[in-house]
């Protein structure tokens, strides 16, 4: 790996995670996220990839009894975002997330995108208007919705809703964006548009994406991590991992022997 040529945006250091029922879901994960790169997490169901992703915006803090052990350090400020003194809300202000199923609020298209700004105390209409337009353009949705910003978000198609959720996550200028199987509820055409969008977004921010779909990982990602039963089995450049995996378990998964 030519780590020297890439800037590390964040890295997990010996990260363990325990659910409230005691399940040890992540076992000592060490992994970097490179700046302006897309890193894909692959692995069979229950391997901990979503759990790992949701550590990055402290989503697990919403439910009592979950416990982190270890660090996720963000650069360049060197903040351990899992530290007790760090407010999860502060983390979520820097790292935004797009979910598995499109989950727009039952509000207008405009208000969906503006919500992150309103949460941050944004009141100036002109500023919010600009940022909403900018985010919608960034999510390749502006041309389709510019004439009906006051329509309910539910009136959009599934693919449009997911792009709206990306716009919502984009509006607050995050440093990292998390995608939790963002296309699993979408048809192939909508999937293609989301994937294209992700590769464009890479220029502005760092992306971590969980996917069930190995072809998707191969298509969009620069780096791929294969997880199995809470372990990080292998992490390397996507081309390397798909062409010449080092670990037998990775090879078995990629060639479809386990799934």
């Amino acid at each position, binding site marked *: 790996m030519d780590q020297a040529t890439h800037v590390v945006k964040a890295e997990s250091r010996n990260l363990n995670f325990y659910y409230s029922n005691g399940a040890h879901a992540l076992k000592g994960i060490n992994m970097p996220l490179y700046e302006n790169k897309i890193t894909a997490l692959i692995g069979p169901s229950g391997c901990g990839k979503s759990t790992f992703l949701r550590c990055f*915006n402290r*989503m697990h803090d*919403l439910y*009592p009894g979950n416990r982190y052990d270890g660090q996720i350090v963000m650069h360049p400020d060197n903040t351990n975002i899992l530290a007790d003194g760090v407010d999860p*809300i*502060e983390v*979520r*202000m820097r790292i*935004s*997330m797009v*979910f598995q*199923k499109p*989950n*727009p*609020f*039952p509000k207008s298209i405009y208000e969906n995108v503006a*919500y*992150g700004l*309103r*949460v*941050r105390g944004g009141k100036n209409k002109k500023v919010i208007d600009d940022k909403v337009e900018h985010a919608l353009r960034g999510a390749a949705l502006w041309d389709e919705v510019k004439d009906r910003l006051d329509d*309910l978000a*539910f009136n959009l198609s599934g693919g449009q809703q997911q792009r709206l*959720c990306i716009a*919502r*996550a984009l509006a*607050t200028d995050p440093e990292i964006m998390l995608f939790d199987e963002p296309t699993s509820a979408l048809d192939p055409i909508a999937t293609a548009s989301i994937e294209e969008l992700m590769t464009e977004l890479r220029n502005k921010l760092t992306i971590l994406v969980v996917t069930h779909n190995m072809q998707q990982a191969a298509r969009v990602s620069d780096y791929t991590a294969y997880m199995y039963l809470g372990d990080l089995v292998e992490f390397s450049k996507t081309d390397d991992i798909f062409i010449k995996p080092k670990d037998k378990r990775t090879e078995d998964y990629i060639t479809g022997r386990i799934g």
Partner: protein
Amino acid sequence: MDNQNLIPTKASVMDDLQEVRAMIRRHKRKDILFALVGLLALMFALLTLLTLFIDLVMDGYPRFNTEFLSEFPSRRAAHAGLLSAWVGSLLVMLVTFLTAVPMGVAAGLYLEEYAPKNWFSDLIEINVANLAGVPSIVYGLLALGLFVYGLDFGQSILTAGLTLGLLILPIIIVSTREAIRAIPTAIREAAYAVGATKWQVVKDHVLKYSQGGILTGVIIGMARALGETAPIITIGALTFIAFLPPSPIGTEAPFVNFEWLSSGFTVLPIQMFNWLSRPDHAFHINAAATGAIIILVTLLMNGTAIWLRYKIRKNIKW
């Protein structure tokens, strides 16, 4: 199976089909049977209510006029009216609404969004559910001890309003919690993920999307409170009252006064009960008319609840 049957002939396929069709017919008979039983049960409930209502309307028909609503009770049945009763009901309901709704919604919100989930919150949950099933007369006795004597509120509109407020509190708490629970986790997480605090999530999302359900609970609770008789008798509502409480809205600044809260009062079901217990049959007509009015208002309130829920839920699909 022997070898000849491996290649299905037209006849053998037809035979199999006949059998399958017969089986489907047999199974479908049970469908029809169950639908019939359900329909009968429904009709039994509806017809009973309808008969009761029509009976009351027919008995009370002579008194359906404006005087009935604008006259005080009187010794002469034909001139006795509901004025003090419906004004009393309205004011009592106002107190009930103003106390039970904020308390119930706040309690439901707290239990669902803020309270830690442990044995203590489980205990509270069981208790709230149980409270909904406590006989209303028990609330009357509690109110008699607490509000009438303990806090010295007397046999007043305030006491009655608070009593009914307590009575419908569990209904409002339970419906608030159910409405909140119906909001998908994904929506909540979406709001948290952009950096919202708990209160921002509650204010901008949870309360907004649960409005319909909460409102339904509130209206159903209020309709229940309107018809309650036992606790009101226990705290000592007057049965014959020929005056109105002081108006809550004054003509001089500050335009509101609170004298009405401590006024004696009567309510619709009490008035009905009073008329019904008189030997003179003419009063029974008044009672029937009152009963019909109470049922009508209750139906209207519940109808409004259903309509509002539909209106509000129309824009929310999940």
